[in-house]
């Protein structure tokens, strides 16, 4: 399986993904610092009531970004193989189609999980560092808070890795690039909304449920792959 994943990486050439992820990291971190500093100076009030709330918004922003990134990965690694008809070459190899697909989905899931988690940690770290100096948001950073936030980030990252498979369902229907990307944007709206009264972004059960749906969709898309004509 590892070997198949390596071959997928060689084909997809994911330099763009790494570069994109780095740029996204910097942009999200900058946006956060500028956003908080700007609002505080202009309006004289802090945008967030607590460090916890700031973490929710950071998490929501990071997850929104990488769900869309994941849909681009689905396009590059799966849909493009159909669009360019290279799938008809791939399926003449003495390898089970299921395994080929599992390798593809594995890359999408792992990358989305790691990059979401690392970005979340990075942006949180930048936020805490600036907050320690400028005190945008009041509150103590305790070990307890860090452990809780860390665990929540991991849970959310797992949930997002699963959720990121949902656009596959729409994309595979007609092997369509727009359907894949647009469905991912739709999911972002579904899971990332946040306001002080109702915060869907803070409810981990929503992405966790979607993750189960996503994994089920991935399973369904692989289940019949052996019998499908190419």
């Amino acid at each position, binding site marked *: 399986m590892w070997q198949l994943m390596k071959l997928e990486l060689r084909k997809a050439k994911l330099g763009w993904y790494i570069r994109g992820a780095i740029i996204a990291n910097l942009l999200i971190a900058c946006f956060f610092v500028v956003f908080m500093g700007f609002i505080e100076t202009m309006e004289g009030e802090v945008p967030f009531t607590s460090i916890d709330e700031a973490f929710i918004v950071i998490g929501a922003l990071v997850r929104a970004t990488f769900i869309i990134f994941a849909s681009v990965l689905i396009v590059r690694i799966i849909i493009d193989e159909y669009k360019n008809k*290279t799938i*008809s070459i791939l399926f*003449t190899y003495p390898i089970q189609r299921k395994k080929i697909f599992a390798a593809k989905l594995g890359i999408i899931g792992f990358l989305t999980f790691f990059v979401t988690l690392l970005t979340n940690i990075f942006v949180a770290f930048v936020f805490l560092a600036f907050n320690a100096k400028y005190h945008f948001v009041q509150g103590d950073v305790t070990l307890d808070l860090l452990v809780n936030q860390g665990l929540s980030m991991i849970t959310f990252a797992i949930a997002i890795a699963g959720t990121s498979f949902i656009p596959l369902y729409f994309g595979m229907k007609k092997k369509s690039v727009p359907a894949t990307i647009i469905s991912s944007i739709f999911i972002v709206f579904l899971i990332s909304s946040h306001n002080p009264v109702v915060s869907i972004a803070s409810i981990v059960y929503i992405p966790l449920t979607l993750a189960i749906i996503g994994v089920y969709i991935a399973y369904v898309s692989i289940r019949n792959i052996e019998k499908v004509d190419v």
Partner: protein
Amino acid sequence: MTNILTTHNLTKTIQGVEIISNVNMSIRKGEIYGFLGPNGAGKTTIMKMVMNLMKPTDGEIEIFGQKVTPSSYDILKRMGSMIEYPIFYEKLTAKENLELHCEYMGFHHKKEIPLVLEKVKLHEAMNKVVKNFSLGMKQRLGIARAIITKPELLILDEPINGLDPVGIKEIRDLFIGLNQDYGITMLISSHILKEIEQIADTIGVIHKGKLTSENSMEKIQSQYTDYIEIATNSQKKACFVLEDKLQITNYKVVEDKYIRIFDTHTPLSVVSKTLILNNIEIESIYQKQASLEEYFFDHV
């Protein structure tokens, strides 16, 4: 000789339309099987079913003595193919495409890559991205990919499409070499009947999804021998002269104007001279080279 590929009542229906109907074909080990048929006859569909890309609706395929099922992956290791338009990872170079192919096939002799590219005359473009290749170059690379693992069975769909006359000859020689030196069995489809005629041992003709004939090239050649065709208004008189003066009895009267002489021992010049000396007006006379083309048109 044993069969390497056999189909039994192979049938494929797509959206209620039967596009392949009860095809029974057999390819013997070590032969080159020429697969002929008009566009849309079903050649590519059969080839796709052989490569397990498409699944039969009915009937079955047997390759290397094994029945092909959706999970027959092992047999693919012993096969090479190029079906429809040659497709590659366009952003990768020719060499990278072949490296990937070898990895997926579990073939670890990487030294073969430059050698096979040299065989198809693409070694100079080895490190160029495929995106910039012409159709002819892609066709050559597709052939290189199909043959690099020295498969026992090669499935080639229109392999000489897009090649210039020099390229066609090179590839023809390559196929003959692979067949003779390595005993590779080939199923080759082509529209260029002259090419198939030169290399095939057996000809299968498919028309509207049905295999209308399957014969050895030898048999076809013996059936479709050369003849001399004479066009004359004095048909009866001419026949008399042929029998009386030239002792030719192996001839056939076609319509009310033509005579075909299958006795090829008598030269054309002698026939024409004798007829003229006997006051028979000849509108035209020529030696007809029987070809696969006629066989093809008789079966579609």
